[in-house]
């Protein structure tokens, strides 16, 4: 996942590579994901969220649908 200044530069990047535009999130959503994923990474209790937990975490910041479902086979 990459940083862009704006959605316009995302579109330019996709066009340059012939790739479809995929979901874009903002800084606030990214910070939520960073804290949720890594906030306790330096502790003994840390672990990676399971697939169902991932779906719930993404949904908390409005990221829903098969793209955000690690068990999906279509997106």
């Amino acid at each position, binding site marked *: *996942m*990459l*940083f*862009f*200044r*704006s*959605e316009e*530069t*995302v579109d*330019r*990047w*996709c066009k*340059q590579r012939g*790739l479809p*535009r*995929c*979901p*874009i*999130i*903002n*800084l*606030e*959503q*990214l*910070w939520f*994901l*960073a*804290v949720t*994923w*890594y*906030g306790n*990474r*330096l502790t*003994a209790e*840390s*672990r*990676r969220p399971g697939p169902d937990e*991932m779906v719930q975490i*993404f949904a908390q910041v409005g990221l829903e649908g*098969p*793209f*955000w*479902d*690690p*068990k*999906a*086979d279509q*997106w």
Partner: protein
Amino acid sequence: MDFDTTVKMKLYEMIAGRADPLAIKIPTLANIPTSIEVAQVLGVPLEDVAAVFERLHKKRLLVPEPGDPTRIRMAPPFSGVETPFKVRVKQRTFFANCAWDSLGIAAALHEDAIIDASDAATGEPITLEVKLGQPVAQECAIHFVVPAAKWWEDIIYT
């Protein structure tokens, strides 16, 4: 604490200290210690640490360097190689694996941070700041190309 957790904790402790120039005890270019270095610090056989690294990889907590399993490419959110996601925390410099992990380093260390990155399309520098436990607001977009179900098919690309 079980042995796998002991190794994981030592690894992250060494990463957090390794990036501090004053704390470097084992000269190396990488910010992530090798299995050899972790075994030396813990005083345990190398093969035991190597086995833990392998188990942590299976749990998707580590990614070995392709072609050299003694080295780690990713101990998320930290990168074992230089990347376009440079994270400065106090006097220390880390590299993150991606946009998500760049904020993840600040979150993992519970520290303020300055992230030097760039717009992937234009190359324009993008500097982000985490201050008092929150990112300082600014215009930017984070684009995900790979769906969640595919992230670990090629996590280095993801």
